[in-house]
């Protein structure tokens, strides 16, 4: 049940130069959200920017009735969001979309979470669900540089094994996260892949998964207007022609379902 709600902000904390962690009261969403789902946030009461901003649910606390959003300030909407302070009210619509499909069988009891940059956002709630289901979970997390890496402690606190890469080698191994994954798989390890990050990364990962015949779920981004399946703006090509819609068919797709 998607509901529009106006929640009170509990905190809005700057974690790095561009990354912020927002906690907001949204009891219904906190109860219902599944890993990989997103919300549409309205960051202003005026008409510029006009559209809502899609943000993954980073974490949720059904008991306290709060959700966490992790966002990067890249443009007007996310900048405006970073101006919100405790006690202010925020208009949120969600939970939206089809999230990650959690592994059920025993053969999938290894999960490889692969996150590039702000692609880390949906991974924490996913990790929380996986760990609760006794799935052994490993996070491979790549970013540009050490100071861009956030929330590693939150994953470790859940008992997730974390391995990192940075483009400049300032934290973890030097290189990108798909190479990190390839190296890891080299050692004979396996598991189902759950990935989120920039499209070039997801594309590389898609090939790798195909090559190694591994199941992979990709969380995609697209420009969205409605987030409700009504505008048909968020098209992603599918093999053989035609399009699916990121907001309702996704944002999470099986790697073979989409053409990036």
């Amino acid at each position, binding site marked *: 049940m998607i509901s*529009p709600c106006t929640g009170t902000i509990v905190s809005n904390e700057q974690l790095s130069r561009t990354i912020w962690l927002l906690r907001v009261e949204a009891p219904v969403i906190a109860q219902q959200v599944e890993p990989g789902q997103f919300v549409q946030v309205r960051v202003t009461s005026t*008409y510029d920017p*006009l559209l*809502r901003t899609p943000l993954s649910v980073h974490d949720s606390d059904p008991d306290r009735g709060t959700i966490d959003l992790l966002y990067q300030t890249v443009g007007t909407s996310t900048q405006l969001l970073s101006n919100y302070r405790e006690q202010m009210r925020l208009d949120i619509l969600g939970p939206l979309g089809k999230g990650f499909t959690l592994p059920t069988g025993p053969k999938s009891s290894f999960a490889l979470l692969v996150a590039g940059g702000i692609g880390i956002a949906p991974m924490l709630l996913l990790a929380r669900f996986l760990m609760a289901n006794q799935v052994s979970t490993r996070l491979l997390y790549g970013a540009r540089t050490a100071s861009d890496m956030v929330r590693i402690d939150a994953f470790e606190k859940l008992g997730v094994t974390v391995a990192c890469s940075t483009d400049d080698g300032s934290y973890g191994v030097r290189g990108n996260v798909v190479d990190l994954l390839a190296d890891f798989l080299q050692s004979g390890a396996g598991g189902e892949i759950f990935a989120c990050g920039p499209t070039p990364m997801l594309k590389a990962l898609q090939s790798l998964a195909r090559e190694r015949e591994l199941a992979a779920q990709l969380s995609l981004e697209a420009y*969205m207007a*409605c987030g409700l399946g009504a*505008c*048909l703006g*968020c*098209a992603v090509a599918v093999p053989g022609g035609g399009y699916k819609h990121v907001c309702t068919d996704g944002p999470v797709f099986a790697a073979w379902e989409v053409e990036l």
Partner: protein
Amino acid sequence: MVVDLSVSIGSLQLKNPVLTASGTFGYGLEFRRFGNLGALGGVVVKGTTLQPRAGNKPQRIVETAAGMLNSIGLENPGVDFFLTHYLPQLRDLGVTTIVNLAGNTIDEYCQLAERLQQPGIAALELNISCPNVKAGGMAFGTSEEVVYQVVQAVRRHTKLPLIVKLSPNVTDIAAIARAAEAAGADAISLINTLLGMAVDIRTRRPILGNVVGGLSGPAIKPVALRMVWQVAQAVKVPIIGMGGIMTASDAIEFLLCGASAVQIGAANFVEPTTAWRVIDGIAEYLEQQGIASVRELIGSLQI
């Protein structure tokens, strides 16, 4: 005070003057969770074509100042799918359903109109103005002669109330409206989107896959109001106004300028309950002003 919100668009009676605009409310069903669809004046469904259409290549949407560009390219599952999958549900929900149709040829429009002569369809809206389909759209809506031809042809193929939706990308909107009226339109709806473009200075490419797209949202409201007002001076058939309506106040502005009803477009994306809020807001305004019927507002602008 109980106010009367009902209006008529030719032979079509609406319980209130607030409809949702084609392409911005899906098939209504996507918004079922936000309110009672049967309580709306009507739902104009996504532009429907004879054959299914995949639509344009992404990126299809970009935000602009107080507006958005879209180049969806009429993605839709085709008229047959609509009739078998969506129409029965809409009928069951008691929705006043108006079908927006788009064709590449006059013949396609006529075929569509015939197929859509179905119980549960309250009216047809002829989309002769979609700017995104190179083969059709633009050309139909920008020439008086062609508008006359297509409307006259479709008129012969349907008994349903026929609403003709105009493109704003023309020099003389009143002349186009008169052509549609002369050809037998029961009502005129306007405006469709303004043709626009957006550019990414980092990639030095157009942002939309289709290069150009249609501009909608609050940014275009002043243009839409002006055109509704001009058309209201030019034709006798009822007008359905749209373009940037976000609030009841916006909707009332269109009514004052001469619209008998309005459609809510991009606002549905921003706030999915907009249509219901606008209905309530109009009722509140009438109460406050002591006006018994919304029909008294229509065209009552004092110059």
